[in-house]
């Protein structure tokens, strides 16, 4: 018996540039791949390699300063080309020049059912850092006592890739992954799927069937509606792709870092799936696929939570999606607040476009000035959780630890506020606020 979740609140953003044909149309073996430490929140990166070092796929590029066994690994075999550093020598990227001539994949000894040893293998193989620990939304800590593990086998974000494509033919890996994870928690391993995908039941997992608009298949939503996180509890979340990798690691001793990426968005000629490697360079992924080269925004991920990247940068973890939209920084729209144009996307019924049921191609403008919180009830309308978002945001802004705790900060991570940030009339940077609040909270309570 699966658990049924019918999510009533939320919002699907109908953007132009969706994939019509759910087939993989090509394969790219990128010559350059890059790993960005910022994608592994909470991990304090220390380089494990020097420029010029030879690495195998699966060799560590980075380790966590606090938990040295937790690694971020190279997805390809090759040579470390550059360690790009920013201000105060912070590592921005580690770039690896790929060499596909030899079959260089590092093998791990996976013959174990012991919890500590499993976690050690996951940490060494770079898969632990692809998972997320709540509260705070950080890279899991190996010694945590995990209440439950939630696997998201669906993505309801705008233009997100379908897990039917991502996980096609991986039934064996998924089942093995669930079996491995079940050793890590005294609770359950939940696998959530959305009505839009056809993932079969996975033996050993507690299946959750989610219905409804985005953010129906965000881990935050699913956890809040099944078993919310209380103070002191720890929950791990991961996506179906990572689950399949865990399965393949424990079946073959090797991690398969190939991935299927959805290239989508209104500025892409023919949105499609393409097979490539984690961390592939954006320039190579998008070569010849764009309608225009100027005034565009390339997002590694979806429009709500993804990272804006340049062409020289890389596909960011954990995303399997590149969205390209207009930047709009030279739009010079005359009296946009009065516009009745049907091409304006809005949840407000004062825009005719709201009623047309069409797809939109919005640009990256804020479309208004930043204001104090004026309208009420906007955040709640798109957040299907039993929390008071406005009051939580205010508690965070005033750095009131007790209030943050009482209002449920342990239940949220920034992505849970992404839709609220989109609909906000006052254009407040909610994800940034929540992220800073979580970091503050973590620092103060540890």
């Amino acid at each position, binding site marked *: 018996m699966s658990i049924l979740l019918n999510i009533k609140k939320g919002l699907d953003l109908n*953007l132009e540039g969706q994939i019509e044909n759910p087939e993989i149309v090509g394969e790219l073996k990128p010559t350059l791949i890059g790993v960005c430490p910022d994608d592994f929140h909470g991990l304090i990166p220390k380089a494990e390699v020097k420029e010029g070092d030879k690495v195998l796929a699966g060799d560590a590029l980075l380790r966590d300063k606090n938990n040295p066994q937790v690694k971020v690994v190279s997805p390809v075999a090759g040579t470390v080309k550059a360690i790009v550093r920013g201000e105060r020598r912070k590592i921005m990227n580690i770039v690896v020049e790929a060499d596909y001539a030899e079959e260089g994949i590092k093998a791990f000894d996976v013959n174990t059912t012991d919890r500590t040893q499993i976690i050690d293998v996951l940490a060494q193989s770079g898969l632990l850092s692809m998972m997320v620990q709540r509260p705070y939304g950080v890279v899991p800590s190996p010694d945590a006592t995990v209440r439950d593990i939630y696997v998201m086998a669906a993505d309801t974000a705008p233009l997100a890739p379908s897990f039917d494509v991502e996980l096609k033919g991986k039934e064996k890996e998924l089942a093995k992954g669930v079996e491995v994870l079940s050793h890590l928690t005294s609770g359950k391993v939940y696998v959530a799927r959305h009505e839009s995908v056809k993932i079969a039941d996975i033996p050993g997992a507690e299946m959750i069937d989610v219905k409804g608009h985005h953010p129906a298949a965000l881990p935050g939503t699913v956890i809040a509606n099944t078993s*919310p996180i*209380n*103070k002191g509890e720890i929950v791990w979340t991961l996506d179906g792709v990572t689950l399949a990798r865990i399965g393949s690691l424990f079946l073959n001793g090797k991690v398969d870092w190939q991935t299927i990426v959805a290239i989508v968005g209104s500025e892409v000629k023919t949105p499609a799936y393409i097979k490539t490697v984690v961390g592939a360079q954006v320039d190579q992924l998008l070569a010849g696929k764009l309608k225009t080269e100027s005034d565009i925004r390339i*997002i590694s991920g979806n*429009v*709500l939570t*993804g990272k*804006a990247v340049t062409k020289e940068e890389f596909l960011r973890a954990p995303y399997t999606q590149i969205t390209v*939209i207009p*930047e*709009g*920084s*030279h*739009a*010079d729209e*005359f*009296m*946009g*607040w009065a516009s009745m144009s049907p091409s*304006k*996307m*809005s949840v*407000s019924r*004062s*825009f005719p*476009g709201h009623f047309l049921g069409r797809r939109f191609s*919005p*640009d*990256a*403008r*804020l*479309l*208004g*000035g*930043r*204001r*104090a919180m*004026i309208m*009420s*009830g906007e955040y*709640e309308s798109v957040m299907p959780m*039993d*929390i*008071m978002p*406005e*009051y939580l945001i205010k508690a965070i802004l005033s750095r009131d630890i007790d209030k943050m705790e*009482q*209002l*449920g900060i342990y239940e949220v991570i*920034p992505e849970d506020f992404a839709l609220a940030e*989109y609909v*906000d*009339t*006052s*254009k407040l*940077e*909610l*994800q*940034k606020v929540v992220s800073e609040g979580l970091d503050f909270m973590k620092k103060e309570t540890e």
Partner: protein
Amino acid sequence: MKSLKKYLDKIKPQFEPGGKLHAFQSVFDGFETFLFTPNETSKSGVHIHDSRDSKRTMIIVVLALMPCLLMGMYNAGYQNWLAAGQTEFPFWQLMGYGFFSILPAIVVTYVVGLGIEFIVAQWRGEEIQEGFLVTGILIPMICPIETPLWMLAVATAFSVIFAKEVFGGTGYNIVNIALITRAFLFFAYPASMSGDMVFIGRDSILGLGFNLPDTFTGATPLGQIATATGATQIVNINGEVTTLWDMFLGLIPGSFGETSTLCILVGALILLSTGIADWRIIVSVFVGGVVMSLIANWTATATYPASFLSVGEQLCLGGFAFAAVFMATDPVTAARTTVGKYIYGFLVGVIAILIRNYNSGYPEGAMLAVLLMNVFAPLIDYCVVQANINRRLKRIKA
């Protein structure tokens, strides 16, 4: 439009720090963002934003007020013509009379209010905010037509400075700015804000309308009831009976823009269909009003003559509907939680009718009810939020 944008871009440096017109930067920014949607793109978080913004929200409220304003103009003329004993009511002359009698008040409130907002924005180094666009049109609409302009100026300045800017500006005020302006006028200059001398235009304007004799009086329906004993018949200036239909249409003496329940309902339709105002508040204010009117009516006594009014009359008279649709729904000063909105609205309705019935000194109960509940809204929200906190605590114990 390109040339206008070019021109703005050309003069912009003069308004930036170091430029010779830097003192007017907030004014320039205000006009620039009004004319052209800012090209600023998102730097963190989501990459796309909804098209709605604070400007659109405020402008829709102003649009929703237009039927009331137009009806106010017509009614201003109508009352003057009626008082002068006319039997013919030429539409455009009536409208013209109303237009010229309200125009100075609108100009004065906008100049004073926006002037202060621009100065404060400049001083704080912030962008000008559009909250006063609504407040500035609301103030003349909820004051008697004969309110002296200097009083309007003083009251507007008082409320913008002391009820809004000292709290931090738009979005931070505790009480409704337009209502605090009216309350200031009501308590500081009672003779000019109530009684039977101020609700009907007394002078001809630019050759339109008629000069009424100094001794002329014309009380509002609630004014008549306040001075009556026992159940009373509401009459117009000429002593003819005022029907419920007249009250609904708004052809009665009263503050400029609040008399016509019909036009208020049109405004409500605009606000609700665009989702700007919260239906929970509007509905629960009316429910509260109906409940309290019924209670008052069942227990009617001659000591409190207003208690003889029917439910329909209670809802159509004295700005009750106007307060329900345009005042109680101000999101900044109303309750912000969903459950809180029902409680807040219901109490606004109850208290408005309660004050009107049982304190004849303040026939305008709706204004005081909204102000009172503005003050209590944070308490209501506190209780709702506390309930959420308690649910979370219980979960840990369970």
